[in-house]
């Protein structure tokens, strides 16, 4: 029943898929819930605090409580806002972020993974779609901070999409496939995580990914000290929660992607594949939290300069180097 990837479509495989989808949804929600908690905990620890600890043992239910609180909060739609778009924007942001999870190979059996032949590009395409939600959310709020935040967000995200895509090409080049399962297999075959032959690419990727996620030090769009809360200034209650959810689901997807592309995905000795995957993804999460505690925010103009004048050329150089490397390897 779980082998729906290779089975003909029957009602039972369809059911299996549906279950798979729901499982991933729950997983994503769980990861987000505890990702947020872990973020607050890690930040607290790094700042000499203990972080949330009141709700549930060790504060484990803190996020749950937060979500419940948001759930029963009033849903305020400003009078000046463009109502339909205002309501739609969080959904528009959330759906692509969630869909991006569909191609991440969580485990060796890839039960919960759509093994499409264009996985990498699929991911890239969806991450571009998320921008719409952010931008329209900012626009529909009809608020100056939101609008600036939304436009900035969009400009930043789409700018960093380019080096992100370029760094992924290097991986595709080495793996010879866009299917993420194949990428993992190629790393097993090579006996080396791609972080080593693609170190430059990895650096570009990790910077671009951080920027794409709007996380410190690239969290300008919601630079609270300048723009209050960026594009979701006017959002409240559960609608705001969906923007947050999007952000963290996207973080999860990016963690999965990093693990898959550069850290060998589910491959690794002794432990089961999914655990390896979880460890690697957790490492990405931790890295992001760590950065957040350390870095000041980069300035808008420097942000763009970094993207177009540093990362993009680096990405191109990486690409050419990888191509030469591969050509030499093929000959040799």
């Amino acid at each position, binding site marked *: 029943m779980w082998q729906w990837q290779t089975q003909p*479509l029957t009602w039972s495989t369809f059911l299996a898929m549906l279950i798979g989808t729901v499982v991933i949804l729950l997983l994503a929600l769980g990861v987000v819930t505890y990702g947020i908690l872990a973020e607050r905990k890690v930040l607290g620890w790094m700042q000499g605090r203990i972080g949330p600890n009141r709700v549930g043992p060790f504060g484990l239910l803190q996020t749950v409580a937060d979500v419940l609180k948001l759930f029963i909060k009033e849903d305020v739609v400003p009078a000046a806002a463009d109502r*339909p*778009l205002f309501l739609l924007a969080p959904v528009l942001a959330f759906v692509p972020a969630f869909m991006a999870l569909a191609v991440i190979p969580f485990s060796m059996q890839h039960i919960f993974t759509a093994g499409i032949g264009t996985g990498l590009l*699929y991911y890239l395409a969806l991450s571009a779609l998320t921008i719409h939600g952010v931008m329209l959310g900012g626009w529909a709020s009809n608020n100056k901070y939101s609008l600036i935040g939304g436009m900035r967000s969009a400009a930043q995200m789409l700018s960093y*999409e380019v080096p992100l895509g370029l760094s992924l090409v290097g991986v595709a080049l080495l793996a*010879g496939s866009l299917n993420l399962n194949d990428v993992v297999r190629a790393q097993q075959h090579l006996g080396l995580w791609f972080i080593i032959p693609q170190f430059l690419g990895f650096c570009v990727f990790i910077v671009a990914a951080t920027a794409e996620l709007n996380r410190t030090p690239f969290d300008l769009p919601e630079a609270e000290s300048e723009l209050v809360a960026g594009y979701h200034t006017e959002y409240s209650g559960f609608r705001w929660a969906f923007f947050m959810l999007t952000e963290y689901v996207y973080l999860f997807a990016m963690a999965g992607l990093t693990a898959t592309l550069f850290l060998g995905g589910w491959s690794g000795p002794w432990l089961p594949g999914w655990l390896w995957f979880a460890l690697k993804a957790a490492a990405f999460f931790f890295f992001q939290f760590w950065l957040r505690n350390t870095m000041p925010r980069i300035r808008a103009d420097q942000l763009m300069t970094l993207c177009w004048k540093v990362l993009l050329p680096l990405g191109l150089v990486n690409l050419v180097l990888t191509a030469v490397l591969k050509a030499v390897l093929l000959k040799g």
Partner: protein
Amino acid sequence: MSPLWSAQMIAFFLISLFILACAVMMLSFRKVVYMALAVGGVFIGCAALYILLGAEFVGIAQVVVYAGAITILILFAIMLTNHEATEPEEPWTVRKALAAVGCFLLGVTLLFVIRGQAWPQGDPSVDVNQGMSNTLAIGEALFKSYMIPFELVSLLLTVALVGAVILAQQRKGDQ
């Protein structure tokens, strides 16, 4: 009638419905931003259709370029001009009526032509990808048979970039 057949057809009709609904919405919306969104829907629907037809790469490319890049570009252009631009509620002018009639008649004739033809049905034994993944096959074909057009694409893009930059950039002294 295998279940597959029905599944494909259902998918096709759903997608068509979605595409046409979005297209009609584009025509009927008043706010320009909404129109841009509706068009985004059409683009995504088309992508789904391509994927249904087995053109995986083209489908994803459609999402990347049309739904991702172009729609964003349009939104940016809207924000740079009149945010609140709306199509005015205008009475039927002669021209509009003529356009409607013309398009309708054109559509009807095209449909008649399509109906009147015996179209070849794809030969299932032929694998257009020659056993490779769609991306790989496209890559090979693109870089072997379509080398010159490919290079021209880069030229075109560069020229478009340069041209658009010249056009869009503010003149000195404007600021």
